[in-house]
């Protein structure tokens, strides 16, 4: 963590300088658009590639803040990539997502879920179908009763 780079930034400043104003609060707020999300992702990756190697930690307190910021960056990137991948709006009550460029629900996303995997250090997004969710019927209860003594 503590490496010698030409221009060091204290790790506790990076959150307030870069992350908080630019990434989550501005480009992935309640109402999202594709362009905003793309620009936010670009900014976030820029921060990770350009500024993250320059962060220094002078003591364990700063190291803890740096680790927190790294985790926040990962979570923000996952959040924005998933919002960009799902091209529909989902109403409040299921999983809330309001995209201004796709203002309605879409049948191709019916019972579909976004799954994100880390494959060789790259983030891959998949669309997977969920199982049908229904309340148990009388037959289900009776099947359980038969198994039990």
């Amino acid at each position, binding site marked *: 963590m503590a490496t010698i780079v030409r221009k060091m930034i204290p790790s506790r400043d990076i959150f307030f300088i870069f992350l908080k104003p630019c990434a989550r609060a501005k480009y992935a707020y309640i109402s999202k658009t594709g362009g905003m999300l793309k620009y936010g992702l670009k900014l976030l990756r820029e921060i990770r590639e350009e500024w993250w190697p320059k962060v220094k930690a002078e*003591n*364990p*307190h700063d190291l*803890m803040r740096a680790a927190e910021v790294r985790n926040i960056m990962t979570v923000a990137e996952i959040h924005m990539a998933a919002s960009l991948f799902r091209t529909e709006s989902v109403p409040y009550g299921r999983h809330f997502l309001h995209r201004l460029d796709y203002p309605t629900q879409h049948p191709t996303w019916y019972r579909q879920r976004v799954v994100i995997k880390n494959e060789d250090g790259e983030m891959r997004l998949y669309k997977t179908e969920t199982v049908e969710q229904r309340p148990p019927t009388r037959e289900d209860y009776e099947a359980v009763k038969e198994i039990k003594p």
Partner: protein
Amino acid sequence: MTATFDYEKCNKCKQCYKLCPMDIIAWDEGEDRPYVKYPDECQLCFICQVECPTKAMKVKIPLAFW
């Protein structure tokens, strides 16, 4: 701020500075007295308050603590 000092009672024995397990108390070399450098990392173990020989240290439990 969870930990507060009464500097009139403090006899500068450095017990709080030596014993704090989270290392939140730092020593001000210019003023020659302890101060709380990382107040948000206090785990409320009360070691500083218990071990202070002159009772100059006071730890308050914040209202937002659950």
